[in-house]
Structures are given as C-alpha cells and as structure tokens.
C-alpha cells in the first residue's frame, strides 16, 4: 500500500464512517412566470412544429361558408347562431338516437351561455366549431315526464335569456308566463313523456336546469357537441340561419 492508496482509504473512511445525517434548515419557495422574455428552446420548438402545422391545417381547412356574421347578442328570445346550433345538433343526434332506440328526439334545449363565440361571415372551419364550443360536452337525451317539461318551459319563461331551442315553439307573455307552447305544431301533452336533447353539462344541473334531475332515463350519445357541429359543417355548404318565431315574448 503506497501513499496514494492510503489517501483513498482515508477518503472512503471520511465518507462512510458515519451515516450522513441530513437536516433540513431552510426552504425557499417561489413561482416563476413563463413569459415572452424567456427564449424558447429550439429543439422543443422544432419538435412541436410538425404537430402544430398538421393541427392548424386541419383546423383551418374550409368545411362550409357562413353568409353573415351571427352573434348570440342579436335577437331577443332566439338568435340566429343559437337556432343554428340547436338545429344542427338535432340533425346530427336524431339519427344516432333513432338507430339506438327506434324513437325520435322531441326537442332540443341548450344554454345561451354555451355559445362561446360569434359565427363569422366567410369560411367555416373546424376552428369555428372549437370557437363556438371549446368544451368537451357531449349530447345526452333525457326522457322527461310532462311535469318536468312544464318546469322546463317555466324556467325558459322566467330566464330572460335566449336559450337555444329546436323543434319546440314557445311564446311567453309580458309577465314572463308561458302563453303557448307546441312541439311540431301540436300542443304539448303534459301527461306524456318527451325525449329532450341537451348536453351533459346542463343535464348535471348547469345553469340551474334542475328539471333534468327528475327523469325516467338518460341516453348518453357518446357524441360531442363540437364534433356534431364539425360533422354538420362537412355536410352542408352554406350556413344561413335566421332569427324566427320559435321563442318569442308576446307584446300584451
């Protein structure tokens, strides 16, 4: 054993002669904001690039054409964009529901707050659908008793909002009571059950649509609202919705 070996032994002894005790004596915590003052890592950036290009190309490929710009703020109790959304999802959902149950959806109810952007004039793309519906909510059909349909109508009468509906026609009076309501131009029989298409958010009590809670059965269509809109855009060439008389307030 020469001097060098002795040194090694001595070093090993120092590091192993006792189990190192570690005592925590200080903690420093902070949060660093990720801002544009940070240089982007070029390897990571290069890795993302093909994915981004693919997604953008897909999102921006033209599916249909919108004749005008439609906002959910244009219209009192029904809006062109809301009517479009409710009608479009009915068209997409009804064949799925019919195939599964042999029955038709009676009407559609969505929420006004769920329209998340305008529908702009010009080319309509998948990105348009992401704008209108950024959330992942999927369509459900609720088997509602007449009593709950009545509650639903009263909710709409009092809500003072243009909640989108389809296949349902509703007029309210100046005091926000239901004046008349019909389905496919026939009066509603409150002793009957109806199949109502909505989304899982509202079904679960979103916007206090509590009337959905008491139901006879629920059919989850496993079909996202956004995907229904994209499929609808693919199917049609021109989007040209109008404000109509499906939901109005009577003047005295």
């Amino acid at each position: 054993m020469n001097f060098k070996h002795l040194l090694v032994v001595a070093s090993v002894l120092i590091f192993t002669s006792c189990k190192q005790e570690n005592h925590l004596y200080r903690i420093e915590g902070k949060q660093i904001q990720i801002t544009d003052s940070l240089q982007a890592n070029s390897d990571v950036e290069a890795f993302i690039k093909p994915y981004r290009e693919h997604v953008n190309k897909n999102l921006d490929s033209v599916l249909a054409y919108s004749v005008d710009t439609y906002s959910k703020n244009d219209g009192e109790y029904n809006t062109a964009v809301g009517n479009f959304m409710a009608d479009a999802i009915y068209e997409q959902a009804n064949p799925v529901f019919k195939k599964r149950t042999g029955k038709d959806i009676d009407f559609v109810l969505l929420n006004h707050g769920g329209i998340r952007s305008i529908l702009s004039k010009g080319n309509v793309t998948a990105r348009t659908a992401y704008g209108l519906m950024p959330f992942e909510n999927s369509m459900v059909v609720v088997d509602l008793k007449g009593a709950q349909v009545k509650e639903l109508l009263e909710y709409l009468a009092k809500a003072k909002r243009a909640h989108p509906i389809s296949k349902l026609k509703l007029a309210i009076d100046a005091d926000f009571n239901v004046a008349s309501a019909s389905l496919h131009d026939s009066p509603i029989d409150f002793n009957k059950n109806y199949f109502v298409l909505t989304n899982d958010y509202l079904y679960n009590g979103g916007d206090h649509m509590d009337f959905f809670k008491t139901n006879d059965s629920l059919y989850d269509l496993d079909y996202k609202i956004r995907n229904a809109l994209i499929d609808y855009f693919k199917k049609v060439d021109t989007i040209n919705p109008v404000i109509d008389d499906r939901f109005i307030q009577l003047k005295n």
Partner: protein
Amino acid sequence: MKRRDFIQQTAAASTLIGLGGLGLQSFATPPKKITILHTNDVHSHIDAFGPEDGRNANKGGVARRASLIEAIRKENPNTLLMDAGDIFQGTPYFNYYGGELEFKLMSMLKYDVATIGNHDFDNGIDGLYAQLPHADFDFISANYDFKNTIMDTHVKPYKTFTKEGIKIGVFGLGIQLDGLVGKDMYKETVYMDPIETAQEMTRVLKETERCDLIICLSHIGYYYKNSPEKVCDLNLAKATKDIDLIIGGHTHTFLPKPTVVKNIEGKNTLVNQVGCYGINLGKIDFYFDADKNKAAEGTSIIV
C-alpha cells in the same frame, strides 16, 4: 504522467480539507440544495397564449418552459421536475393526438414524475394507457387502486429519488372520480380516502424508506370555499404529519406565494399550486446541512 500527478495532488488536498474539517466540527460538508420544480393543470397548453388573449397574453408555452428548466438544472443538478395532473384536455392538440404530444414533450423536458388528474381520463382509462409508451417518466397515485384495470402495475403509489445523499419520497393523490368523470371512462379504478392514504404513505416513506424529504403530489384541489370540510390540500396538510411539501392541482389556484400550514404535530407543511395552462413554474428549494445545530434552530421558510 503529468495528469496523474495532478489528480493525486487534488485528492491529497481534498482529504486534508476533510480532515481539517473533522477537527473543527463533526462533518463540515457544504449544505446541499434540492430544487423541486412543478407544474399542474397544463391542459394541453403546448403553445404560448397569443398576444390577443384576453387574460394570459404572451404567457406560457412548453418551449419557453424547457429553457427555464434547463437553466435551473444547470445551476443545480439536484433538481426534480414533477406535474400534479390534468396534463390532458384543453387545446386541439389533445383532440388530435390524444395526449401523445403532451407526454413526448414532458419526456423531452425530463419530467421525473407525475400524478393523474381527472381530465387524464378524458379518453377513458384505455386512452391514458395507450399514451403511456410516450412517457419516459413515472406516474404515481397512492389512492387510486388500478388493480382491476388496464393500468394495473403501470402506476406506483410512490417513488423515491436520491440526490447527493438526500432521499426524496414522492407519493401521488387523486381526486374522487365519481361525479366528475364518467364511470365508463375510469372503469374499475377504485378511489381511496386521501387522508388515510397519506397517513400510510408518510409512515412508509419516513420509517421504511427513511426519506429526508417527503412530497405529496396531489390533484385533490387546494381548497373548496363552499365546502370547507371537503378533502383538499389545506385539510390534508392539517391532518397529516411528515409531509414537507404538497404540490397541488385541480382547482387552478393561482397563489401569490406558497402557503404554510401547521400539520397535526404543529410543524410546518408547505402547500403550493401554480394556477394552470403552463403559465407558471413552481420552484421550491430545500437546503440540508449535516450540522444538527442549524436545524435545531428550526427550519426557516422563505416564501
């Protein structure tokens, strides 16, 4: 030969310093610093927010986060990077690639460990499982029992790391899935009580694994103002012992600074969460010293 001489001399010098130190104090090794970096609820936000964004203009972005993490690691190699769940869902990247890009990027950034958030079930438990090959990091969850699911054996309750002689134990906690995630999505995943699980985990990590530092990576939420009794990070911190840091998620809570909570033994536990969408990176530095006296004065927390 010149080079060998140099090494010998260096060895002799360091040994002498060591021996010298031995004379003065028991072990005068320099303090050690462990850096914990963390994110939560990134929700597929890979690109930075655009300049026109109403709330988070020009913030976030994985490529920028990568540079920041790289710089911190360069300064302190004893760094761990973790994510508290909800990696998935929020931008079309998820809809198009099902989480593949999120996991690949986290692997590029060298994440060490992540826990599972409710949105990570958004393509079903099968959708999560399908993306696992893209993740070079481990998933931990101590209160989800995946035994009767496809995820069985792919998620560990905890993971330990040793950095410069400091043993760090990290365990994961997930939120109750019932009511939040469709049963058809999470399937036979069994949720267990987070506090009971944490008590068991801290016992294992402290007594069996003899960890110097215990971290809980949680997706149970910071605090629920309208249900103050609901299990959450703040209540978890109060009801347990031996947890040094709870890294949280789920509630997208932006905190001005990490919260210090007295645990069941009256000792300090740090609770942190950094909002969402990759806008912030949390950084907690833990300093250790071999000198008992320093620690005897109590651990100072600077937040």
